[in-house]
């Protein structure tokens, strides 16, 4: 359907332009030019730049969550599953460094609605972390916020790296991310062992 592929083109264009120019400097004209659509068509789909950007953000998050979850579910045993998911996450972010930086670092400059989207995006990964509650002895009595906080640790490490050094060395974060994810559930000794064992 022409309408759907126009929307997809526009969302992809939005991600490219905003990653390049920053959110504030991006205009609707930039978006329509990059997507090869008319202004009229733009306003048939979206009320304004912000609504378009949020839709683009949601679409990118959706694709990322699917990819991470797929990698997670291939493996057996929660630590291995977690490792695969985190590896896929780092790979995906490395493939699109501008988008990664925008999604984790630059999003705050796009206003409170975008910040909320970012927090909601992080929470999409909660089920992957919550599996630790079943895996770990006594895991069921851990605080309900454990997965939320572990995701916060992971996001913090990735954001710091992106802000400091871009995406070039993201893959080297894997061990630390894995440790941060496992440690609230199985403790530092077991987490360190798993990180050592599952590294290839």
């Amino acid at each position, binding site marked *: 359907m022409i309408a759907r592929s126009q929307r997809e083109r526009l969302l992809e264009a939005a991600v490219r332009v905003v990653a390049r120019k920053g959110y504030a400097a991006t205009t609707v004209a930039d978006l329509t030019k990059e997507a090869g659509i008319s202004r009229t068509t733009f306003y048939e789909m979206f009320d304004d730049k912000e609504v378009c950007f949020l839709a683009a953000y949601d679409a990118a998050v959706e694709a990322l969550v699917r990819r991470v979850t797929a990698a997670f579910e291939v493996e057996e045993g929660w630590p291995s599953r977690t490792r695969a998911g985190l590896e896929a996450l780092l790979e995906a972010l490395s493939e699109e460094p501008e988008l990664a930086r925008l999604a984790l*670092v630059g999003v*705050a*400059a796009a*206003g*409170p609605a975008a*910040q*909320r989207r970012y*927090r909601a995006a*992080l929470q999409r990964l909660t089920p992957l972390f919550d599996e630790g509650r079943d895996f*770990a002895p*006594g895991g069921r*009595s*851990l*605080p309900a*916020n*454990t997965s*939320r*906080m*572990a*995701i*916060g*640790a*992971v*996001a*913090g*490490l990735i954001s*710091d790296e992106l*802000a400091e050094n871009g995406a070039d060395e993201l893959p080297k974060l894997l*061990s*630390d991310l894995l*440790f*941060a994810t496992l*440690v*609230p*559930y*199985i*403790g*530092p*000794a077991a987490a*360190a062992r798993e990180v050592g064992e599952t590294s290839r």
Partner: protein
Amino acid sequence: MATDTRRDLILAAMIRVVGTKGYRETSVADVIEEAGTSRTTFYKHFEDKHECFLAAYEMLVDRVLAEVSTNCNGEQSWLERVENGLATLVKLFALDPELARTAVVEVAAAGAEARQLHWNAIARFTEFLEGGREMADGRELPENISLMSAGAVSGLIFDELLAGRAAQLPAQLPDLLFAMLVPYIGPRAAAEEMRRVADAR
């Protein structure tokens, strides 16, 4: 000096306005009005909104850390210091939601230099966590371990502030403590501390 006092008023006003309207929506006019000062005075001290914000943020951080170090000292055990430090932080944030929002949420919207100030503040705050390495019985802990704890804690605080729940932050202290301690002492010991703090409330 009179001009220093006016500078402080402007900085305090910046924190209040940004903590209410957000960094993006804040204008120099807003800050001037809140501070009860003039445009001339503002521009005598600051180039623009951005520079004023950076100065305000540094003042905010010094204030928070001064409060934290008042309640944490070298004579306390590591556990006590972590607990007192976190408790001071959430109490401050609960009492001053605008300061909290500026410190944790809006700083991310103010550019790379602001982010660097934020990062420095977190590093200073977690300095006293380094005592935790001794708790780990000489085990190899990741370099980044205090960053992990900081990420866990600030993520939860961020969400609560975004939802307008600054006043409820002290209720989250047990969970925050768990997140801070768990990479060093493991979930069982961290949960024990968490329960002790929850029971004492």
